[in-house]
């Protein structure tokens, strides 16, 4: 049959790699012929054995699902201490708490997750591999040695927020997350450099009340992420978050003294819970 012949031709043209010069994850071997670090409960090993070869098939680039890029340059900063986009009440990786980490729930296909089990469509990771990730989280979800992911990006800027700018989310909002490109100077994280205020209007926003009383902290285990915790969860309304990058009253900067250079703000709307 003609159609079978066409598919046979496709079979002949299809190319499965011989793996020469690649490690067991398909990554090019180093100059010394080395490559393929064994899977251990360290971030670099997990990156090389799981995130890079498996997850970045989808979670890479500007269109990564849920904005979660798992390539080497972004993965740590977007995982550790950062609320999941699907369930903002749960950290993607909660250092010391694998059961409370959304990544584990998604990898294990636990009940209550949003969307499908990861990797989407399988094959799913062996439990032994998931257990290694569990162990890394139990050990505090330590950053790669030398905090390479941060040193690679010396600039200091806001790279992500949750809720995102112009987002509409459902009440109550208990945490606001601001992710920076490098480690934040903890001594500068306070009410003078970070502010949440209710606003009204569309094009020109006007504060409608005094700033929302909040506490501020560096995300557990992730010094590049700041958590803003309103004392009372935010109810319905529109809110603006301002990160001070200039001014006499205080400006946020990285531990290496690099400032934002300008104020950064984002606005989101909280809708009543259904």
């Amino acid at each position, binding site marked *: 049959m*003609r*159609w079978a012949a*066409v*598919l046979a031709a*496709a*079979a002949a043209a*299809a*190319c*499965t*790699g*011989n*793996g020469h*010069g*690649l*490690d*067991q*994850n*398909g990554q*090019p071997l180093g100059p010394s012929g080395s490559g393929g670090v064994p899977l251990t409960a360290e971030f670099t090993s997990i990156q090389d054995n799981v995130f890079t*070869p*498996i997850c970045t*098939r*989808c979670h*890479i*680039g*500007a*269109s*990564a*699902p*849920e*904005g*979660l*890029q798992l390539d*080497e*340059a972004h993965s740590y900063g977007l995982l550790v201490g950062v609320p999941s*986009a699907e*369930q903002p009440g749960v950290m993607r990786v909660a250092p010391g708490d694998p059961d409370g980490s959304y990544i584990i729930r998604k990898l294990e*296909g636990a009940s*209550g*997750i*949003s*969307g*499908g*089990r990861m990797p*989407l*469509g*399988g*094959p*799913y990771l*062996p439990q032994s591999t998931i257990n290694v990730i569990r162990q890394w989280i139990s050990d505090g979800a330590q950053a790669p040695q030398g905090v390479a992911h941060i040193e*690679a990006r010396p600039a200091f800027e806001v*790279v*992500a*927020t*949750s809720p*995102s*700018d*112009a987002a509409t989310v459902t009440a109550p909002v208990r945490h606001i997350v601001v*992710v920076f*490109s490098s480690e934040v100077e903890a001594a500068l994280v306070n009410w003078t450099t970070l502010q949440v205020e209710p606003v009204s209007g569309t094009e020109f926003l006007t504060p409608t009340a005094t700033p929302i009383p909040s506490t501020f902290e560096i995300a557990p285990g992730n010094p590049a992420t700041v958590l803003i915790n309103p004392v009372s969860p935010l109810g319905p309304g529109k809110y603006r978050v301002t990160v001070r990058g200039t001014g006499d009253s205080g400006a946020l900067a990285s531990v290496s003294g690099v400032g934002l250079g300008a104020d950064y703000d984002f606005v989101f709307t909280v809708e009543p819970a259904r």
Partner: protein
Amino acid sequence: MSRPGALPSLLPLLLLAALAATSARAEPYLAVQQGFKCTQCHVNPTGGGMRNTFGDVFAQTLMPMKHIDTGQEAWTGAVNSFIGIGGNMRYDWTMTDVRHQPSANQFSMEQTRVYLDASMIPNRLIVYADELVAPGGATNEEAWAMYWSASHDWYVKAGQMYLPFGFRLQDQTAYVQQVSGINMTTPDRAVEAGYLHGPWDAQLDVSNGTAGGPVVGNGKQFTGQLSFVQPIWRLGLALDLNNSAASGRRTAYGLFGGLKTGPIAWLAQADVVVDHTSQESLRTAGGLLEADWMISQGQNLKLSAEQLAPDLSVSIRRNGQTRWSLVYELTPIQFLQLRAGIRYYDGIPQADIQHERLYFVQLHAFF
């Protein structure tokens, strides 16, 4: 789309639909077989999701082996003249066999979706929602409003939606769906303009470019698609430019086409994606060739060959991955489909996880 409140008989509608030669259905191969565009059977002009009246009637009469006569009016999804509902449920049994790993099998709820459309101004103004209600907690996949021109030659859509990029395959794990990152798991907030006239079908979208993730900066994603659709063949181009500031840049190119030869519908698509991250550029490519043989009404045999080049800086002879699928689809009665198949993954010898056999049986109920 306006919805007749009741259908005393299917025949007039089918006749009318048969005379209105344009557009299609949930699976792109059906569109190729019928010579339709997506909007023939779907509320969404770019396909997928809720079926319109034609799609509902087609699914009850021309898809199943046997139509069970209920003695009642046909289901059209119409709650009343303005509101329509629909849904899809896919429940699976799968067995996964990965080299050097114990095989695993399980029952799983792949997905259950419910759709709602409100046509406040019939045929002109529509508000639509697609809610993924299982597995896990409910997630809004699509929610948009769409305005059609009086001639139905063009439309404007705004809200959260799936972006157009090549064939909207049912299998979200197909390589061409994965490498572009644009599929039915990654809706984005966008504004879409569409043009459908004669054989032409075109869309242009401007979106946040974060696939539902946090938004930073002012970067936007531009996605465009142009198709030329003929009764027995079609050809399309897709382009995606994502300059979502802090996330890096991505450019994706797609070429896709379909051809009908007797009872077989052929689909082919090739995507090339270039990612510019903070450290380096990565070029990835995926290809699909699919043949769908309609054995008889209600029976389809799908065979597909796929190629993945995960990093084009490395020869495909070294790092290429392939996937073969053989899927039998049986629609015994209206609203019910059974699917059974095997997917065979092959990759580099040293990567066990690239060597997988996936066997599955799926119950697909829809309305």
